């Protein structure tokens, strides 16, 4: 399906190719169900049915209620909505917010905006393994803390954060808890009830779904103002004509994930083991950033002491091997990763000598073998 014959794609954390079943569902929707889901005629009502079906599928996947799912244009919009609107909803109670130093820009930028408005933000550093010190987190919580935003899985290193522990702690304190689950939704089992999450962001294009659609889970009984204002769509919580084909595609991606999650994760574990084995076998000088036992299996961040990441990327690219340094979304330029910076400090050699390898459903053992062969030549 995808022309990857000569090339090796190891950048699944940036974006994934759409699964063919997703494309089929979407094109079918565009051909046959083009009514506006808010129109009162039959075309509209049919579209509405599909929309609500998708909402139910997505909700069930994280043990939420359908009415707790608000479809958005992607992870960024979900993050922006949760942070900006969450903070404003609670600003009468306090102005202190807690997050980590290793969040995605879609969380960090809106927080910067809130700081300019007079909110105070604590950025918790992570340890050398990329993990969050839970005790340290607890100490940061204050009387006037109104919002905590901590990602479920880090996009550069793959570290899994202790969302359930944080949720349990916060639920006794009436503090809004948001998690950016863009990298976790799909591969990880998320139970929003068990983890006591108030707000959760997800995006379809990381799980073989279309670009330009995501959702914000918002726990029932939590009121935050709407970010996108206009028509009465999404129970008046997010205006804009519902992007039905993409939402149906997202639903299909979730079904596909649900059916194959265990297999995908096992595949990733195998590929990761193989990658490490081959790197050792070829006697390449490398180290792993972080702590594999606390990371999702499909993301691995590698440090090559003898090679600048920038050169490495260019040389890999010439061989049509796609990996990244840091995250793709820090658009267009290589700057020292703020994630590695928090882990290893400003002066660490790792900042300019590390790359992210992220694998997925279409990655083969041969891809890994060929990738390491090329690495051997250039490192």
């Amino acid at each position, binding site marked *: 399906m*995808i*022309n990857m014959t000569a*090339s090796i*794609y190891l*950048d699944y954390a*940036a*974006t994934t*190719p*759409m699964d063919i079943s997703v*494309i089929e569902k*979407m*094109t079918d929707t*565009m*051909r046959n169900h*083009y009514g*506006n889901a*808010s*129109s*009162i*005629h039959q*075309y*509209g009502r049919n579209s509405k049915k599909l929309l609500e079906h998708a909402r139910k599928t997505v909700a069930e996947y994280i043990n939420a209620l359908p009415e707790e799912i608000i479809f958005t*244009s*992607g992870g*960024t*919009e979900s*993050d*922006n909505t949760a942070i900006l609107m969450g903070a404003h909803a609670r600003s009468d109670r306090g102005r202190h917010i807690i997050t980590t130093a290793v969040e995605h*820009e*879609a969380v960090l*930028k809106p927080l910067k905006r809130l700081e300019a408005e007079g909110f105070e933000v604590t950025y918790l550093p992570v340890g050398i393994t990329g993990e969050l010190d839970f005790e340290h987190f607890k100490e940061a919580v204050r009387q006037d803390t109104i919002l905590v935003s901590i990602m479920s899985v880090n996009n550069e290193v793959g570290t899994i954060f202790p969302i359930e522990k944080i949720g349990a702690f916060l639920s006794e304190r009436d503090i809004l808890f948001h998690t950016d689950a863009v990298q976790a939704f799909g591969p990880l089992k998320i139970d929003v009830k068990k983890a006591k999450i108030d707000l959760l962001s997800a995006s379809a*294009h990381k799980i073989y779904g*279309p*670009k*330009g659609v995501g959702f914000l889970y918002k726990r029932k009984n939590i009121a935050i103002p709407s*970010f996108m*204002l*206009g*028509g*009465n769509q999404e129970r008046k919580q997010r*205006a*804009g*004509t*519902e*992007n039905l*084909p*993409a939402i149906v595609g997202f639903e299909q991606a979730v079904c596909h994930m649900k059916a194959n999650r265990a297999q995908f994760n096992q595949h990733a574990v195998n590929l990761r083991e193989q990658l490490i084995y081959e790197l050792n076998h070829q006697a390449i000088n490398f180290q792993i950033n972080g702590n594999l036992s606390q990371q999702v299996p499909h993301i691995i961040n590698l440090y090559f002491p003898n090679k600048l990441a920038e050169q490495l*990327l260019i040389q*890999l*690219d010439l061989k*049509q091997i*796609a990996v*990244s*340094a840091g995250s*793709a*979304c*820090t*658009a*267009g330029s*290589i700057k020292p990763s703020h994630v590695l910076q928090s882990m290893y400090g400003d002066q660490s050699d790792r900042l300019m000598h590390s790359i992210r390898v992220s694998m997925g459903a279409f990655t083969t053992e041969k891809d890994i073998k060929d990738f390491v062969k090329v690495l051997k030549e250039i490192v």
Partner: protein
Amino acid sequence: MIYFDNSATTKVTPEVLKVYEKVSQRFFGNPSSLHYLGTQAHELLESARAQVAQILHVKPTEIYFTSSGTEGDNWLIKGTAMEKMRFGKHIITTQIEHPAVAHSMDQLEHLGFEITRLSVDKTGQISIDELKQAIRPDTILATFIAVNNEMGAIQPLAKISEVLAEYPTIHLMIDAVQAIGKIDLPLGNDQRIDMAVFSGHKFHAPRGVGIVYLKEGKQVAPLLSGGGQEKGQRSSTENLPGIVATSRALRLLTKDEMKKRQHLAQLTQKLREGLKNLPYVQFFSTDKGAPHITCLGIQGIRGEVLVHALEAEEIYVSTTSACSSRAGRDSSTLLAMGIVHEEAETAIRISFSEYNTMEEVAQFLQAFKAIYRQLTRIYEK
């Protein structure tokens, strides 16, 4: 099946759909990635942008892609307010804006901005004198719905531009979601309009892509912030298949544009001609409005009743607008035109696309007349 609800949304044309499919299979890379797949995706994104810019007679650097018309409206209005509040907090708009504009204004009002909502006459147009009087030293933004989505009124953009020419610091914006392809839009470097909002799904592109024109040098704070895409003005991974498909749809829309507009006008004329002798039919649109939208009602019959009666004949139209099918604040255009509540409640909107035919209009007329006879029988006693 006759679909006359094209102002709510349109069907994606097969050619455009094929583009969507192809791009999503062949160019799945993230345009921000630095490797070859990212580079390919980036180049495709920029060529789509260049094409859109060329069609709109503006520069590629002045085009931004969003997720919808709603997002474009929210962004430009709130973004202008945030950017320029140190110069003033007064905004001018009309009473007949789409909710995406109207509700953004309401929010700004809560935040301490002052909003002047210009009234409209029986044809749905603002008064230029009222506009002139509304302008103040602290006015930072003036925004107008180029073609109204409920009844098709066209605002006098040339005259508005002329008035605003004397006030270069006021951001002049249009919501052109219903206007693109239907009327002339004075955009470009030599024109007064600074910002315009479009939405692909109104012209046979897939849902989920909006276009914003923002003139070079005009400052607007971003709405979505994060990874820094779209020159930092609109963060989030770009919906490349949707964007490329939208640029194709725009090209198709503007091919033989004059001929298509004429075709739409003919459909509308046939519709009006066919209904004008029915004594209980009331037109809320004039024949000077946009060529694709007609708003009308049958006296004493609620719009919903008529919509469902037509639906039984497999004809799809809508009450005033899809996203606000309820009465009240939201369907304010007719009320703002001075039409009383009881009459406004009867309104339905018939909206054509270039793909509709005279034959469909003929069928519509036949069905409508039969329904009309049935519903108005009570009046004949």
